[in-house]
């Protein structure tokens, strides 16, 4: 059984290898091969899951060491896997959603000449992500961590001929690297503290280390999580990452990779529990991001960027929950899974809309699409209801639990966090309703297809099957092919029922409890009150959005808006801050250093050379070429020699 874990990772890795190294011969079957291997991975995951269910709750973890990876002195890193309930949850989510999105991509990327490579990258991502969640030590986790970063880089920049895509990819990788610095320092700290960085000994003995060390490790892990999960202050890359193809946004930047930070924090729960300060930092980051993402999501007109803001905000919820400690871990993961379903569904829906709308991403040019794309409308609508927490759907259960847990934190802190979470729920309802209304309802605001000289946002679907409409024509919205709708339908099913299934009999709680532990907080408000409040803010949010966008026509050109709106459109000025401080400052710094290198460091060297050259130029004049002149020197030298001899004799 243990050996299957390795195969789980190897299957997509093999796919990546074949697809990327194989020549054009694979162009015709490559995408199906990639999908097949993803499915194989899912099947293996399912087998392992079945096997795991067959065992006792306490005895479900599987451990296997494949080989010693880096043995140097006391430093031992192994390639070993640890599959427990937490990892299993992720494995199923990754392979399941991953397979669906592979399937979706078959249709979505049909006309891209580099489709084979796209599937290679997707497979690479799956392998890295699986490695991340099944690794049994932090260093191997780090490999997966950077691996998904690489896959994300390659996929965001998949349409490399678009400078914006290449820049976005670079930005994503760089911001992630900043986070990675945190993870690597955390690993180093673990090594100095524990002499190892495998999960078992580190987490088992975390309580024996000093609080200071644990806080330091915790903060570094948080930095890593911030980078990967796009949390404030490292959130700026996620919006730009929407330059990638939509399936990528759905899989990597919504359902799986961005939640790796939550996995990391949950996995390292033992460390955070020993470091309350670090936990405080985690909940702070979660709460801030939750609002930050939500506000950004309200202002964006680009459908994908609005969804990206939403993703940020939802992950904020998860991080907040993970920061609460044992009272929140389970709900963080539960929200993560349900979010994986509905957000992937929403993105796929968005992709489907764009597919039918000449790759238009501006919601102000949509409108009234429900009539033209019924399947997309229904699945997107179910996802929408799930995310805003409509009673009975997935999001309702998971989000509700998180808000409860936030209140249960207790004290002023609890009130603040709970309040924030509630406010976030309200804003979520508002911006999601806004997206829904602007896209599917209201009058048509379609605009002609972009002219060829304007780089298209999603070049994948440039050549449509019928090939009827070119530049300057109005789009003809149509339903997407089966390969795209089937994954959407399946994900919609997930987003409707997953939450209920998990909550029924506390299945999910019992499933995860052996790994993460769980305790009930003593909430100052009852669960019912929380649910009521959540419903209330939900209604308020939806109503506000309806009042603003549903009752009167949406202007095609965005109004100037308030100061906050304008700031939110620019990602709350984070990018401007980065640009001024980091980019400009960095440019100045490197240019200054370049000048210093040229003038001071190299200048000193060259200066020495010039000085010596000048001196020898002067000295050279002594060499006038006249033999007699040299003879004088010889004669004088002889005299000096004699004098020296005599002097030595005298002394």
């Amino acid at each position, binding site marked *: 059984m243990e050996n299957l874990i390795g195969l789980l990772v190897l299957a997509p890795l093999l796919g990546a290898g074949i697809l990327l190294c194989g020549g054009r011969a694979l162009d015709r079957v490559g995408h199906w091969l990639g999908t097949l291997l993803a499915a194989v991975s899912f099947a293996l995951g399912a087998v392992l899951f079945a096997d795991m269910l067959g065992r006792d709750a306490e005895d479900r973890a599987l451990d296997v060491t494949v080989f010693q990876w880096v043995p140097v002195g006391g430093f031992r890193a192994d390639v070993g896997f640890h599959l427990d309930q937490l990892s299993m949850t992720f494995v199923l989510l990754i392979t399941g959603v991953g397979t669906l999105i592979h399937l979706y991509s078959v249709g979505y990327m049909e006309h891209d000449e580099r489709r084979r490579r796209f599937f290679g990258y997707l497979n690479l991502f799956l392998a890295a992500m699986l490695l991340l969640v099944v690794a049994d030590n932090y260093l191997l986790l780090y490999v997966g961590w950077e691996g998904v970063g690489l896959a994300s880089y390659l996929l965001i920049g998949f349409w490399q001929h678009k400078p914006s895509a290449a820049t976005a990819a670079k930005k994503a990788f760089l911001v992630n690297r900043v986070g990675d610095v945190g993870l690597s320092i955390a690993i180093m700290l673990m090594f100095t503290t524990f002499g190892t960085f495998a999960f078992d000994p580190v987490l088992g003995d975390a309580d024996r280390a000093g609080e200071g060390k644990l806080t330091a490790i915790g903060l570094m892990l948080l930095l890593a999580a911030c980078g990967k999960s796009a949390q404030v202050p490292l959130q700026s890359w996620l919006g730009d990452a929407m330059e990638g193809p939509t399936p990528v946004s759905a899989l990597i930047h919504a359902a799986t990779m961005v939640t790796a930070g939550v996995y990391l924090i949950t996995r390292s729960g033992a460390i955070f529990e020993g470091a309350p300060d670090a936990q405080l930092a985690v909940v702070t980051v979660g709460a801030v991001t939750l609002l930050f993402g939500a506000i950004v999501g309200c202002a964006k007109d680009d459908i994908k960027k609005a969804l990206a803001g939403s993703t940020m905000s939802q992950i904020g919820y998860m991080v907040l929950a993970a920061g609460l400690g044992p009272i929140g871990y389970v709900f963080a993961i539960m929200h993560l899974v349900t979010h994986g379903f509905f957000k992937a569904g929403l993105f796929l829906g968005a992709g489907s809309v764009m597919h039918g709308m000449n790759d238009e991403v501006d919601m102000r040019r949509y409108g009234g699409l429900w009539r033209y794309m019924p399947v997309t409308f229904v699945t997107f609508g179910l996802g929408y209801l799930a995310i805003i927490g409509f009673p009975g759907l997935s999001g309702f259960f998971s989000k509700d639990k998180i808000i409860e847990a936030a209140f249960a934190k207790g004290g002023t802190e609890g009130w603040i966090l709970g309040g924030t979470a509630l406010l976030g729920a309200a804003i979520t309802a508002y911006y999601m309703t806004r997206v829904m209304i602007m896209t599917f309802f209201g009058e048509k605001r379609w605009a002609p297809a972009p002219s060829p000289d304007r780089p298209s946002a999603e070049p994948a679907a440039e050549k449509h099957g019928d090939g009827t409409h070119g530049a300057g024509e109005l789009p003809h919205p149509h339903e997407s092919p089966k390969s795209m709708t089937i994954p959407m339908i399946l994900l919609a099913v997930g987003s409707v029922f997953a939450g209920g299934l998990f909550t029924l009999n506390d299945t999910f709680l019992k499933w995860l409890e052996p790994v993460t532990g769980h305790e009930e907080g003593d909430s100052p408000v009852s669960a019912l009150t929380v649910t009521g409040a959540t419903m209330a803010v939900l209604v308020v949010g939806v109503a506000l959005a309806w009042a603003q966008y549903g009752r009167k026509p949406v202007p095609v050109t965005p109004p100037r808006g308030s100061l906050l709106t304008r700031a939110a459109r620019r990602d709350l000025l984070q990018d401007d801050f980065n640009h001024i401080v980091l980019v400009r400052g960095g440019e100045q710094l490197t240019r200054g250093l370049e000048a210093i290198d040229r003038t001071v460091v190299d200048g000193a060297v060259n200066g020495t050379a010039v000085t010596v050259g000048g001196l020898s130029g002067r000295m050279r004049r002594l060499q006038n070429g006249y033999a*007699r002149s040299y003879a004088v020197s010889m*004669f004088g030298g002889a005299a000096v020699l004699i*004098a020296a001899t005599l002097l030595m004799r005298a002394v």
Partner: protein
Amino acid sequence: MIAAGDSVTSTGEAVQFWILAVVATGGALATVLMRKAVHSALSLAGTMIVLAVFYLANGAYFLGIVQIVVYTGAIMMLFLFVVMLVGVSAADSLRETIRGQRWLAALCGLGFGILLVAGIANASLHHFDGLGQANSGGNVEGLAALVFTKYVFAFEITGALLITAAVGAMVLTHRERIRRAATQKELSRQRVRENAHVAPLPAPGTYARHNANDIPALLPDGTPSELSVSPTLRARGQVRDVSGEALADLAALEQRSREWLERDGDEDRKGAVK
């Protein structure tokens, strides 16, 4: 004449030394200071003869004779030959061209001399053995005994050196003829081909009062023709220029005739006025 184990020489030798030392020093100074190489050579020869006398006085009879015969007689004559070859009349300009050379040389010389003198004065050389015993079997025999026993290797090597030097001198001064010398016919053809000096070169000056190879012929305008004298003489600067002399002679002749015919001259003038 030579007292063994003494510290003072005889008075005669002292007198001889003081007189001849002045001569030798004078000769040496003259060697350095004379402008013409010939004079330098002669002064040097004088100094060498004085040194020969000193050798004799010091009991080095063989060396004294060799000094006179070989050094003064042969080597100095060689010098004179070369001086003649290069040009006996060419006098050195004593103007120094290298800045500070003369000062530095004087300074170094002075310092060097002082050091040498100081060194000799410091050495305890008050006693001398004399050569009475060494020369007892005859100076030449004594030298021969040493040369052919103790210094035989050096002697042999010196022989090799001399031969090498002789060969070297020949090699250095010998000019290899690379091509066959052109015959007269070929030379004349070449002149015609090049259309230069088809006629023979002008002969050197043959004047009423001068007809020597070192005097250039005069061109019709009175300037000397460089072509008429040997290039060797020209290079040595030994060409005598008589162009000015002829004109001066002419002027002197006119002057004298005018003086002699003073009246006629006046008459001429009167006639002219008339």
